[in-house]
């Protein structure tokens, strides 16, 4: 079980980072609406890139916005946070930096 401890710690850190936008949106409704607006723009741009401008892209992006931004915004926010961490290369810092840093020393897994 000792070998799994650092992995569990890192998974918990990633889960915490994923939950962070949801937590902030509960803390501040303004943040939530800003986030939703940003996600709407992102979904529309994603659909527009594939289908081009036009009525069909408005309809498809409307459906996607209803599903992922209105209904399942918590899932989208968490997934986007993970995407951001992976996309900006922060995952390497978290995975390789934290075990050798202060947190790793506290958890007893530092070198």
């Amino acid at each position, binding site marked *: 079980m000792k070998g799994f401890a650092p992995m569990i710690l890192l998974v918990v850190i990633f889960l915490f980072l994923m939950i962070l936008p949801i937590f902030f949106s509960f803390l501040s409704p303004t943040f939530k609406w800003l986030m939703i607006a940003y996600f709407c723009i992102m979904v529309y741009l994603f659909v527009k890139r594939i289908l081009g401008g036009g009525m069909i892209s408005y309809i498809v992006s409307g459906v*996607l916005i209803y*599903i992922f931004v209105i209904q399942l915004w918590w899932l989208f926010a968490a997934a986007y946070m993970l995407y951001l961490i992976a996309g900006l290369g922060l995952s390497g810092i978290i995975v390789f930096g934290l075990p050798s840093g202060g947190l790793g020393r506290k958890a007893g897994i530092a070198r």
Partner: protein
Amino acid sequence: MDPLTILASLNPLDWILQPITDLKQTIDLMVFGFKIIILLFIVQFVRGRFGGGPMISILIMVVGYIFLEYMWPIFGPMMFIYLFIMFGFSAIVMDLVIAKPWAKGGGEEEGEGHMTGKQYYEELAKRRGGMHR
């Protein structure tokens, strides 16, 4: 009032079933949204290969039907893994499961699987020395 009637009016089965029904509805919604995204990827792929036109729209419908309805139990998980890899989430999993940075170079985790090159050659030389004795 009869306790059994009170219990029946509380409907404990609903308390158990309601979250399950909600979860199923959420998952269904998620799958529907996922299918639309996959359809968009199919549109992008087919248009990228063959251009536009009415025949291409029919082709998109046929491919969409095959992928999203007929073979969905196979293609669904495959597409999920594909998206997982494409968005770079696999890098995190690889770092966590394969690289294991905390196991590198010491502590209690150090074993035969995590030795440095120098340690490996020292161990090899030790074993060879043992064999020639």
